[in-house]
């Protein structure tokens, strides 16, 4: 009961500042514009995939970090009340992730509904939105972890940008380096495992295999397709995603419980 009440207060606070609406509007306008510029459902999904992979992790990790820093006084106040720390932590996280996920769901989903493409591409759109929400949760929980580990606001924000850059760009560079370094060895398995360790790569590949038929190219493409296309592969993807959601969150939670505010 307490938790729900806390979520309610916190949600009201989040919705009062307008950035969630802006975030929602961004997806709404982007998706709708893609439809209006002559794309059919399939092309819109492919373009939205790029946007989602780029924007969601960046926004989630930045906003998440800032959100927790801004909630500092509120947290201190609440902790002087008869409220369990775990309840407060859950409320804080839920109040961040729920509106952001809803923004993704509606922002991407609604244009598909009123453009009528939802009926022909239901599975694909849902999968896309599901991936978007998963990435939101993952990068929000990483943000919580960062904000709880570093006292300094600037350092925390800097760290979140660096981490995003690492996942989005540097990591792939390292993979490429690895591929060139060990090009004489059979690399399909190691590269598959390496790319699964990065949630952004994982999301990208899972979406790619589904939407971009040309990713099937050649023998290597077929190997990846076989893995990610199978039920076993999909289950592993979900498991890794869940691990990525849970680990930073649990670490953050431990810190939150122990920490002297």
């Amino acid at each position, binding site marked *: 009961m307490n938790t729900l009440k806390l979520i309610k207060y916190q949600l009201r606070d989040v919705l009062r500042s307008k950035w969630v609406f802006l975030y929602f509007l961004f997806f709404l306008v982007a998706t709708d514009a893609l439809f209006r510029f002559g794309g059919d459902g399939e092309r819109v999904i492919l373009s939205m995939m790029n946007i989602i992979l780029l924007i969601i992790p960046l926004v989630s990790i930045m906003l998440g970090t800032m959100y927790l820093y801004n909630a500092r006084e509120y947290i201190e106040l609440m902790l002087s009340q008869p409220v369990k720390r775990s309840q407060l932590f859950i409320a804080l996280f839920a109040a961040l992730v729920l509106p952001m996920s809803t923004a993704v769901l509606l922002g991407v989903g609604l244009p598909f509904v009123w453009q009528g493409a939802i009926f022909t591409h239901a599975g694909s759109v849902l999968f896309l939105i599901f991936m978007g929400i998963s990435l939101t949760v993952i990068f929000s929980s990483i943000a919580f972890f960062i904000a709880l580990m570093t006292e300094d606001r600037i350092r925390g924000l800097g760290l979140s940008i660096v981490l995003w850059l690492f996942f989005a*760009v540097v990591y792939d560079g390292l993979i490429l380096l690895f591929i060139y370094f060990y090009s004489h060895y059979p690399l399909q398995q190691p590269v598959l495992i390496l790319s699964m360790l990065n949630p952004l790569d994982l999301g990208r590949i899972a979406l790619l295999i589904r939407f971009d038929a040309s*990713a099937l190219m*050649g*023998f290597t493409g077929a190997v990846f397709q076989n893995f990610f296309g199978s039920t076993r592969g999909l289950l592993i993807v979900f498991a890794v995603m869940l691990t990525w959601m849970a680990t930073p969150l649990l670490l953050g939670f431990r810190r939150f419980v122990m920490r002297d505010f």
Partner: protein
Amino acid sequence: MRTPSTLNKTKRMFRILLLGLLLLLGLFSFSFAADTLHVRDSLQSAINNAPPGSILYLESGIYEQETIYVRTPGITLTGRKDAVLDGGSERAILIIKADNVTVKNLTFRNTGISFRHDFAAIEVRNAKHFEIRKNTLEKNFFGIYLSEADSGLVVENSIKTTGTREANTGNGIHLWNSNYVNIEDNYIRGHRDGIYLEFAVHAHISNNISEHNLRYGLHYMFSDKSVYKENIFRYNGAGVAVMYTQNVTMRDNIFENNWGPAAYGILLKDIDNSVISNNIFRNNTIGLYSEGSNGVDIHNNLFQQNGWGVKLFANSTRNVFTKNSFIENTFDVATNSRQHNNTFKSNYWSKYTGYDLDGDGIGDVPHRPVRLYSLVVQQNPVSLILHRSLFIDILDIAERVIPALTPETLVDSTPLIKDPLK
């Protein structure tokens, strides 16, 4: 009163009349011989007994007997559509060894499958001027097999089987050492190669549909001066492969949906001085693959949504690409070397990012169709896993600004602003 002279006159007239009647009868009987012979069972003896030029009409029924040989020239074999020649899954069905033979409107099914003999539903061996028209071929090893058979027609046949392995499936239409053959309006499905030509000069292949074959939709070697137009090759295991041939024209064909580790819209190997124009290459792993092919004129083709639009090896030279449209291919052009002796000019590239200030429809900035990433994938196929990664995009942009690794000479300096095919 009758005089002897008048009597003679009547006699003569009567004689003439009789002669005329006899002649007429003879003519009638002759035409009767050239007319249709209806056949119910023993087909082989009917064929053996038929004089040259006869038409044999097969009544409905299943004709399952030893392999049938036609050795008499000018024979026409035709019949009701439900006249079925059955090979009993153990032998060839019909072998033609005489000129001017026509096979029409018949159904052939169940040849034997052999690793030593090329059993075919219809085989023409060392004969000229044959015509194979409107037949239905089902579940055969080879469909129509022409060896040293010149100047014939293969038209409007439907050739289907449900092959599972390349080893126990033959080709739909197979030509060996046969010149001046026209292959038109046929439908071929499920064979090893849909249409196979080896040493078939001056072949003319048009309006055929060849799909869901295990290996190639069309496969030819050493078949110079042939024309391929308005055919459709789709869903074939490995697409279309053509080799060691000169002076070929391929136009208005459609190559689509050939996906797989080694599937090509069309694979050119050692094809020289030929023209490939107005074709559509869509949804293939590789649209056009060129190895060791020289002086091929490739114009007005559409390359759309292929993994690789064109894969051009550096041992291909003097090929000219003009007025083609490259639309939404993962890689428009890929190659394996910085050195190049091929020309790209006035093509349309959907990835072109330049501008046209003077409004003459030609982009002011040259287009480099080879992405750095395509080079990377060429060297290390595993890096395919980085497809659509932000890192790769940044790498590509950097390379486009200052080309250091992609071929300098492979540039379209007059890229079109509008798609010429729209």
